């Protein structure tokens, strides 16, 4: 198959033992060094890994505690402006804000509304787009009415599941904003205590949950998308 000419059957067995994980420490370290240096061996490592990988199907997933991700991000992005280290490029978000504003304002027919009648408090937009599923939800928060309008552009919950919307403010635990209604566009009125936590650096997140929402009050399923609130 991908055997290099310089590779003996003995070497191939050693790679299989390495991938399986049975070798003692010293032999593992020695082989790891050879893998770095010898492409033929490295090709065999990938062969064995791909072949054995299906055996891992029997390991039941276990959700790790939240502090692990926080620790990883702190180590990888120590200088992030934002503790959650989520910002991509600022220019991107500026452009996205401008575009969303146009779409949202047009969508809500606000063009006809007098500027003077708009509420004074900060309002926000956010665009929740899942990377691993065809899910996109545009969110508009109107500070005056404390109403969060959700417009589900594409995607939806899996069969027998619900989508749940969360607010992540600073380092606090996620706060549930409720289950995403089945209708493609819907409104949720926020309690004033929750509305007070909306801030330009807060994040919205959508997670996959059992019907009716998370039984624990915290996300229990996969977080499908997160997006920062963008002040309008």
């Amino acid at each position, binding site marked *: *198959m991908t055997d290099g000419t310089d590779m003996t*059957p003995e070497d*191939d*067995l050693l790679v*299989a*033992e390495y*991938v*399986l*994980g*049975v*070798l*003692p*420490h010293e032999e*593992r370290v020695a082989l790891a060094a050879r893998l770095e240096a010898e492409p033929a061996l490295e090709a065999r490592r*990938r062969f064995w*890994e*791909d*072949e*054995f*990988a*299906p*055996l*891992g*199907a*029997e*390991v*039941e*997933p*276990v*959700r*790790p*505690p939240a*502090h*692990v*991700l926080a*620790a*990883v*991000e702190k*180590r*990888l*992005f120590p200088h*992030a402006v934002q503790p959650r*280290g*989520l*910002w*991509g490029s600022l220019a991107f978000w500026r452009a996205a804000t401008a575009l969303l504003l146009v779409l949202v304002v047009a969508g809500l027919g606000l063009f006809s509304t007098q500027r003077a009648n708009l509420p004074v408090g900060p309002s926000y937009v956010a665009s929740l787009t*899942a*990377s*691993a*599923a065809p899910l996109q939800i545009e969110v508009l928060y109107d500070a005056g009415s404390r109403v969060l309008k959700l417009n589900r552009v594409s995607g939806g919950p899996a069969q027998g599941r619900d989508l749940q919307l969360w607010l992540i403010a600073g380092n606090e635990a996620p706060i549930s904003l409720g289950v995403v209604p089945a209708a493609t566009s819907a409104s949720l009125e926020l309690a004033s205590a929750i509305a007070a936590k909306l801030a330009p650096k807060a994040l919205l997140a959508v997670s996959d949950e059992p019907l009716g929402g998370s039984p624990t009050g915290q996300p229990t399923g*996969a*977080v*499908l*998308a*997160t997006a920062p609130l963008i002040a309008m």
Partner: protein
Amino acid sequence: MPEDLSTLIQRVGLGDRQAFRTLYSLTSPKLYAVCLRVLRERSDAEDALQEVYIKVWHGAPRFAVTGQSPVSWLAAIARNHAIDRIRARKPLAVAISDAPEIPDDGPDPERAVLATAERRRIDDCLSRLKAERADAVRAAYVDGHSYQELAERFRLPLNTVRTWLRRSLLQLRECLQQ
């Protein structure tokens, strides 16, 4: 969703932190379980998981050139790290008989159906080995057992275990490459 995971890993390779977070939320339960299975202690598995995702971040730029499936690429990072971590310790810090009970994970019927399609080739090939030898291969892969641990588990001398496991690997290679 293999294609989606590939795309995510490639975005992580370009330094996309949001993609990293999404990748983490999608894959960490599996990789944590892999670490937990090998290391057996939660705090140890949590530390290992941190290191695994640091490696994922740094390794992602090279992912595309490996041509590997994203699942096996990620699983290999987690398994290799967990196994290196446990092997680097004093040998057999936890004797097999003292190891905490690992829950019985006999697949339920629904999962078994799902699993069958995915793992037919390796299963076919394992089924051609003697049952005990196939079990040893699975135990090594899933629980991260060393030769020493396998020897204890199967109550055989170390060298005997190594000899018959290597023989099993030769048979597997022949079968897998057909």
